[in-house]
Structures are given as structure tokens and as C-alpha cells.
């Protein structure tokens, strides 16, 4: 009975993915009709996404056993293998739930006359979704790479939707380049993993025994490959360029979903295909993750473009997820299974949370851009009065991403901190002192994320409009609001019932680590460790806050009054204030620029006090560009120039090359 349910889940999934592809193709029937492609096909795509989420959820039920199938596709002797287990089920659930919200939003978002024809964009969009699902389902390296490349290419075309703008073409090229550097790493990693058997199925890789050095090589290659896709520092440079360039629903998909597919790949290789390795794997991943988290948070705080700010914030969150994975790997190498399960659970729940709130925020920026035509934080402000729905829902997303209780972002950060609290038990005299300090970085990052989100939300939605035109901003349509509400609901539900999330990821940690973090005996609290060590209850916290707010409100009205007199803002009696006197995005980032000065490559032009028309300009770049990437590209160009000497364009020289080669080969053979 159970077997039937699970095989149906896999079949249904394949059918749903095929339906996405059909949907994309249907868009080509009337490629220029927004009505047909966006308003009709995208909502159907959202329903399919819900189906995918449902099928993924089946894989997370208690008695599900992994299901495999071989598809009659691919090369003659290399058929596609697919497999559905708890890990892939979880990421399909994430893909489906966030994807449904994004698709509904996109149905209301796309307008005619924006770059690529709608039909083409619909095809790319659904191909992108389907390829992500196929990466997650793949059970052999061949299919994995095919789906992975499809994902990279379809998202590349989505990024360059507005290909008439040169900076967008440049961002797209950078993305494509980094995607292929990453893919190369993954390909080499699979090459190492097959261990001489030349069998490309994941089953064979699981069974292969690798020499420790080769296993380490595979691990480092996987970290490079998936890290490049996920945006680990220093391979993150494409992310703040490509995410803002894409249309907002695509940014949401890339940030919310595609980065999670990279996380999935990392988990699949490091936990499923590779066996437990030395402790430095974990320390390396942890270090890179924490560094990425802090780097992303610091750079997010000084951005002046709202989508770039969110892109850097994605880097930060990916860093936290990889820190969780690294901590789990570290604990696994010392065979501390429960602790490994706790850290891994934190990483998985954070992946899910990030998919929800980052999609929500990227979509909200899309609504803002459509309503105002502005992306720069310096020209926004006060939108809470003109777009109340978007502002309210974005508030939920901002609070969630800032890691504030009782929303979902807090849950995963709390679990991660609880895991760090246990690290002094690591039986290694040096690690048990250095690893706990990672918790300080996690909390610094979380607090910086709060700073970033106050800046983002405060500058975009609060205050007074910085431009006159903003007063004409119109609220978002109902489809956009539905998509946003769906994602915000997810943020609230995971925050209120973190126990359920812990149960769900427990199936995965059971599969990968062999241990499960229990939610604790009580239905109300979550006590992942011993019941008297630590506890948290999102539901009671919500109840308490709502109750106190309501009681205070009623009591104040009952015993005093509710009179309100509207007056101009006081501002300490200064009468000539204008909206331009509010903090700009640059101004709000000033403490960060001051405190973390050496991290930035900063060029500043300060006006003199006597300037009649003072102008202030600050430009912030990353050191990595000038210290790493530009020298690298110069080196490649120089080498290429040297090599062109060989290619003089004279036929006689080329014939000489062939002749010499033949002679050399003859000498070698003889």
C-alpha cells in the first residue's frame, strides 16, 4: 500500500514536471499575448507547483522509503535515473511552496513591452522551474549535469530579459561565466566520486570506496562548484550583479530557489555520496560559511540599490546555511550524531525560511518598481501610505529575515545557536575553543541583518516620499498581493509552529545522519536538547504579544481616552524640514562604513564647507574585484595574447605544426 503511494508520488512528480514544460511550450502559441501567457498560464503553473510540493511532502511522511525509476531518456547506454527520498522531497516541497507564490505574483507582474516576448519568457520560466526539480530528482551524474546546465542556461536567458541594456548583458555574461566555472567543479567532483568504476549512477558512487585524499579532493571540488552557484565568498561576485538585473519574479526564483538547489547539491554530495571525512572538511565549510555570512551582511548594509541590498543579504543567508552544514560535518567527523542532526536541521530550516522571505522581499521590490519606476533607495520613501498591502507584507518579510521572534527566521537562527552552544564538547583541544566563537559571528550577522532590514524597510516604505512622483504610486494588483500573502503566511506559520518544521527535517537528518532531533514531549514548546536546557515556543510568544497589545490598547482607551490631534511633525521645532533631510541610504549605512572601513574599497568625495553647491559622492566596491578577479582576467588575456603567436594566419606555418607533430609522434612511438 505504502509502496504504491510512494511510486505514485514519483510518477506524479515526473508528470507535473512534464506539465510545466508543456505549459512553457503552450506559451509559444500566442507569444505576444500577456493575457494568455501571464494571466492564464502562470496561475496554472502555480497549481502545478503546489502539486510538486504535495508530492515532495509525501516523501517526508513517516513510512516512506526511497523510490527510484529509470527514464527512457538520455544517451543509449546512459538512461536518466531518478530517485525520490526525504532529502529531495524536502527541497521539492520548498521549490513547490515558494514557486507557487512566485508564479501567482508573476501572473500579475509581467507587462507587455518589457524585453523578451512574454511567450518566450514563459517558456524560459517554466523550463527553469522544471530543471530545478529535475536536478533535485536526478540520481545519476549525467542527468544531474544536464538538468544543472539547463537550469543555468534558462536562468541566464531570464536574467538578460532586458538585453538592450549593456550593463544587463554584462551581468548576464558574468553569471554565465561563474555558472560554468562552478559546473566544471561539479563535473570534476563527479569524476572523482565514481572512483574508477566509470558508473555514473549515484548508487555506484555511494558504494565506491575512495582513498582519503581523493575523497577530500571530491569534497573540495563540490564546495567550489556548489559554492560558486550558491554565492560563497569569494565566488559570489556574480550574485549582486545578476540578481538585480533580472525581473523581480526571476530574482526571487534565483535567490529563493536556485541557491537552495546548490545547497541541495552540496548536501547530496557531502552527506549522501561521500562518507564521513576528516574534521577539516567541517571547519573549512564552517569558516567559509561564517565569513560569507558576515561579508554579505556588511555589504548589504551599505548598498543603495534595493535589489542589490537583497542580493547581498542572500549571500549572508547562504553563509549561515553553509555554516550550519559545516558545523554538522564537523560534528559528524567526531561521531556526535545528535549535534550534527541539530546543526543540519538548522541549516535545512533556514534554507526553507530563506526561500520564503527572500522571495517575498524580491517580489515586493518588483511591486515597488512597477508602482514607482525606481530601484534606487535614495528616490523612494513613504510608500506605506500608497501601497499599504505591499508594505504590510514586506514588513513581515523584513522582520522574518532580520531573525526576530516570533517569525520563522528566528527559529533557524535559534537552532543554529543552540548547536553552537554544544560545541565546547567537541573532543579536540583546539576546536572546542575556537568553534564556539562562531556563535558570536552568527549573532553579529543576525544583528547586522536587523540593521539592514531597518534600513531597507525604513527607507523604502517609511518616512516621507523623497520624490514628488512617488505620491502617484499605485497599489499592487490582486494577483501580486495573493502571491505576497502566500509567502508571508508561510513565514508566519513556520514561526508559530517550529515544532512541525523540526519534525519534517527530522526525516532528513534521520536519513543522512542517523539521528533525529526531537521536538520534545510537550506539544507547546520546542525542546530540541534535554528538556531543561533550552526551550522556545513561537505560538505562546505570539499569543503573549497579541494579548498584551490588545489588553494595553483596551485599558488605555477605557481609563484614559483615544484622542488624536494631527499636527505637522515637530522635529525639535525646526520648521523648514524637507523630505531630503531624512537619512538617505548612504547616510543610514554610514556607521557601517565607519566601523568596517577596511572591508570596503571606498572612494569618497566630500564637499568643502564653502561649496555653493555641495556634492557628496561615495562609491563602494569590493576588494575581490581588484585583488582577485581583475588580475585573473588580465592574466587570462595576456596568456591568450601569447598563445595567438602560434596562430599567425599563414597556412604554411600551420602545415609546419602538423608536420612537426607527426614527427614527434613518430619519435615517441618508435
Amino acid at each position: 500500500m505504502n509502496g504504491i503511494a510512494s511510486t505514485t508520488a514519483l510518477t506524479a512528480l515526473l508528470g507535473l514536471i512534464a506539465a510545466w514544460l508543456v505549459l512553457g511550450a503552450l506559451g509559444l502559441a500566442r507569444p505576444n499575448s500577456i493575457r494568455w501567457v501571464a494571466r492564464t498560464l502562470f496561475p496554472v503553473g502555480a497549481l502545478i507547483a503546489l502539486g510538486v510540493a504535495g508530492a515532495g511532502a509525501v516523501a517526508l511522511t513517516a513510512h516512506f522509503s526511497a523510490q527510484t525509476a529509470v527514464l527512457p531518456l538520455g544517451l543509449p547506454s546512459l538512461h536518466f535515473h531518478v530517485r525520490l527520498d526525504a532529502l529531495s522531497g524536502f527541497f521539492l516541497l520548498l521549490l513547490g511552496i515558494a514557486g507557487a507564490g512566485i508564479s501567482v505574483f508573476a501572473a500579475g507582474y509581467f507587462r507587455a513591452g518589457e524585453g523578451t516576448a512574454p511567450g518566450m519568457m514563459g517558456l524560459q520560466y517554466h523550463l527553469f522551474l522544471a530543471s530545478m526539480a529535475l536536478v533535485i530528482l536526478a540520481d545519476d551524474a549525467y542527468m544531474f549535469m544536464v538538468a544543472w546546465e539547463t537550469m543555468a542556461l534558462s536562468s541566464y536567458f531570464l536574467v538578460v530579459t532586458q538585453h538592450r541594456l549593456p550593463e544587463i548583458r554584462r551581468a548576464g555574461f558574468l553569471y554565465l561565466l561563474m555558472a560554468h566555472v562552478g559546473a566544471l567543479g561539479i563535473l570534476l567532483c563527479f569524476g572523482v566520486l565514481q572512483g574508477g568504476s566509470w558508473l555514473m549512477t549515484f548508487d555506484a558512487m555511494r558504494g565506491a570506496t575512495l582513498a582519503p585524499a581523493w575523497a577530500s579532493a571530491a569534497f573540495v571540488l563540490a564546495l567550489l562548484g556548489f559554492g560558486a552557484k550558491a554565492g560563497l565568498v569569494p565566488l559570489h561576485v556574480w550574485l549582486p550583479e545578476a540578481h538585480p538585473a533580472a525581473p523581480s519574479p526571476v530574482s526571487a526564483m534565483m535567490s529563493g530557489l536556485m541557491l537552495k538547489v546548490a545547497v541541495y547539491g552540496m548536501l547530496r554530495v557531502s552527506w549522501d555520496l561521500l562518507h564521513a571525512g576528516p574534521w577539516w572538511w567541517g571547519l573549512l565549510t564552517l569558516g567559509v560559511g561564517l565569513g560569507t555570512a558576515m561579508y554579505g551582511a556588511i555589504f548589504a548594509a551599505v548598498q543603495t540599490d534595493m535589489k542589490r541590498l537583497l542580493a547581498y543579504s542572500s549571500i549572508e543567508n547562504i553563509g549561515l546555511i553553509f555554516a550550519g552544514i559545516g558545523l554538522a560535518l564537523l560534528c559528524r567527523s567526531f561521531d556526535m550524531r545528535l549535534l550534527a542532526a541539530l546543526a543540519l536541521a538548522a541549516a535545512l530550516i533556514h534554507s526553507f525560511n530563506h526561500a520564503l522571505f527572500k522571495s517575498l522581499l524580491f517580489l515586493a521590490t518588483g511591486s515597488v518598481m512597477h508602482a514607482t519606476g525606481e530601484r534606487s533607495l535614495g528616490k523612494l520613501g513613504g510608500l506605506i501610505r500608497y501601497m499599504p498591502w505591499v508594505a504590510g507584507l514586506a514588513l513581515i518579510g523584513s522582520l522574518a529575515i532580520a531573525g526576530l521572534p516570533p517569525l520563522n527566521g528566528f527559529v533557524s537562527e535559534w537552532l543554529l545557536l543552540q548547536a553552537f552552544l554544544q560545541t565546547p564538547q567537541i573532543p579536540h583541544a583546539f576546536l572546542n575553543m575556537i568553534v564556539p566563537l562562531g556563535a558570536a559571528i552568527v549573532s553579529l550577522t543576525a544583528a547586522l541583518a536587523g540593521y539592514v532590514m531597518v534600513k531597507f524597510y525604513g527607507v523604502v516604505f517609511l518616512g516621507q516620499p523623497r520624490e514628488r512622483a512617488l505620491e502617484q504610486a499605485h497599489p499592487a494588483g490582486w494577483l501580486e498581493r495573493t502571491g505576497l500573502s502566500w509567502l508571508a503566511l508561510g513565514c508566519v506559520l513556520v514561526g508559530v509552529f517550529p515544532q512541525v518544521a523540526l519534525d519534517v527535517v527530522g526525516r532528513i537528518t534521520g536519513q543522512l545522519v542517523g539521528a533525529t532531533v526531537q521536538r520534545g514531549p510537550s506539544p507547546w514548546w520546542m525542546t530540541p536538547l534535554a528538556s531543561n536546557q533550552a526551550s522556545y515556543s513561537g505560538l505562546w510568544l505570539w499569543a503573549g504579544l497579541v494579548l498584551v497589545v490588545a489588553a494595553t490598547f483596551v485599558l488605555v482607551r477605557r481609563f484614559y481616552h483615544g484622542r488624536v490631534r494631527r499636527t505637522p511633525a515637530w522635529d525639535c521645532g525646526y520648521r523648514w524640514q524637507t523630505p531630503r533631510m531624512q537619512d538617505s541610504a548612504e547616510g543610514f549605512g554610514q556607521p557601517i562604513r565607519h566601523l568596517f572601513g577596511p572591508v570596503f574599497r571606498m572612494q569618497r568625495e566630500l564637499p568643502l564647507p564653502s561649496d555653493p553647491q555641495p556634492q557628496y559622492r561615495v562609491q563602494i566596491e569590493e576588494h575581490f574585484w581588484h585583488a582577485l578577479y581583475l588580475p585573473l582576467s588580465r592574466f587570462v588575456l595576456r596568456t591568450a595574447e601569447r598563445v595567438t603567436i602560434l596562430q599567425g594566419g599563414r597556412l604554411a606555418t600551420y602545415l609546419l605544426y602538423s608536420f612537426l607533430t607527426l614527427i614527434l609522434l613518430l619519435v615517441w612511438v618508435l
Partner: protein
Amino acid sequence: MSATAYAWQVGECLLAIALAPLFAGWVGQCRAWLQNRSAPPLWQPYRVLRKLFHKDVALATHASWLFRSAPYVVFATMVVAAAIIPSVTTDLPLARVADAIALVGVFATGRVFMSLAAMDVGTAFGSMGARREMMIGFLTEPALLMVLFSAFMAFGSTALPRVVEVVLRQPHIMLHPSLFFAAVAFVMVLLAENARLPVDNPTTHLELTMIHESMTLEYSGRHLALIEWAAWLKLFNYACIGFTLFMPWGIALHGAGPGLLALAIGALIAKLVVAGAALALLESITAKLRLFRAPEFLTMAFLLAVLGLLVHLLLEV
């Protein structure tokens, strides 16, 4: 959990709400004495509250719903925190809603709402205060977390009632040198988090030096009353967290009778009297730091807490 436990839960919450202004009044009185001024009466904060509640709210024309609801939310976070901290008894049904780490998160929620509200009216001082407050916030959180880490190492739990039980059953734990470092770091964090000297001056009238106060400039009437009350509650809560972690004597354990509970209230008041006087003394002998010196102060707190952690790992395990 018995009905009396729930009664105590509500009672402790109300006690905190009632005592917080008194504590603030006591600190103000001590400061005045130390500075040779004639002191305001102890119940001055209650008078302030009464006056503010009676006044009309003068609301800026373009203030949104966020500005109007933030005082209630900030007040609620502090009340919920007060319900979770075992200041009088450990027999609190709701204490398990959040452990010490989650409590830090609850405080952060209050801070973020306060900062957002400050940015809502769109004045220069409001957003300046928000930015400074968030800066102090992200500097204190790592230090506070390291303090909790040291405490966790010593007591084996981040659940505050459990900490109290552990210490009261094995008092010699308090002799650990790591806890001394943690306590000093905690006091520094307390000063910064509650906008006290040397990081911020709660009684300043100079807008450009303000942090917390500049966020409340646009508030008036009942909204201002709630915000002031919340700030006093925050100080009270931090003091109670300090008592729980570093001097829990007097707190009634699970199953204590009414006599012990009365004693516990007495002990709490005695501790508050001492702590308030100490706080006033500390504030009277330090000068306010320049804003960008505050990070050094808080880095110092962080390093002390880390030192505590290392001392624990090297000497006490």
C-alpha cells in the same frame, strides 16, 4: 502546573509593570543625590505617566499605522519578557516560552519596532536615532551572547529558571572565575542596551548626542507614556536577568509557599535598591563616550565575555 503557578505568573508580570517606574525613579533619585541636586520624589515616573496618559496625542500628519502601533508592540515585548524572566519565583508556566537566547530575540524585536517607528515620520533626528540604535544593537548582541555562553557553560542550561535552580542547589558554582568576567561584560551590555552612560545619556537635552531619546522625539501623550514605560521595563528586565544569572539568592524555587514568596519579593526589592544605587554611581563617575568610541566599549565587553569562556574551558572543566 497548578492554578497558583498561573496566578504567580500573572502576579509577577504585574509586579514588574508596577515596580519598573519605581526602579527608574530610584536610580534618578540616587543620581540626583550623587550630583548634589535636590532629588525628585521616588514616584516621579508615575506622575509622568499619569500626565502623559491624560494628554492628547499630537500626531504628525504623515505618521502611518506603524508609528501608532509601535508603542504597543514595544511595550508588549517588554511585558512578555518580564513574564519569562524568573525575578520572584521559578515556578512560572510561561518561562519556557523562551530561553535566554530567545529572550535576546524578544528584546531585538522591540528595538527594531522602535527604530522603524522612528523612521516613520521622516524627520532628520528620527532616522539618525534609528541608525544609532541599530548600531549599538548589533554591537551588544555578540557580547551578550558570549555572556550567555559562559553562563551556559557553568550552569548547563540557557533556561533561566533552571539556572536559578542549579545555583541555589550548588552555590559553589558562583565561585567560578569565568562568571566574574561574564558578570562584568553583562553590566557593560546592560549600560549600552538601556541607553545609559557612557554610551547614551538618558537625561540629555542635546539632540545631536541622543540615541534612544531622539527616536521618541515625535511621540506624545499615551504613545510616549507607553514608550517610557517600556524603557523602564527594559531596564528592570535587564536587572532581573542579571540577578538570575549572577545573584539568584532569594528567588523562590518550585513549590515554595506564600511566606517564601513574600521573602522573594523582599529580596528582589533589596537587590533592586542596591543595583539602582550602583547604577547611579556608575553613571555619575563615567563620562559619555563619543559615538564612535562606543564600539570600543562594547568590544571590550565582548572580549571580557570571550575571556570568561576561555577561562572556563582552560581552568574549570
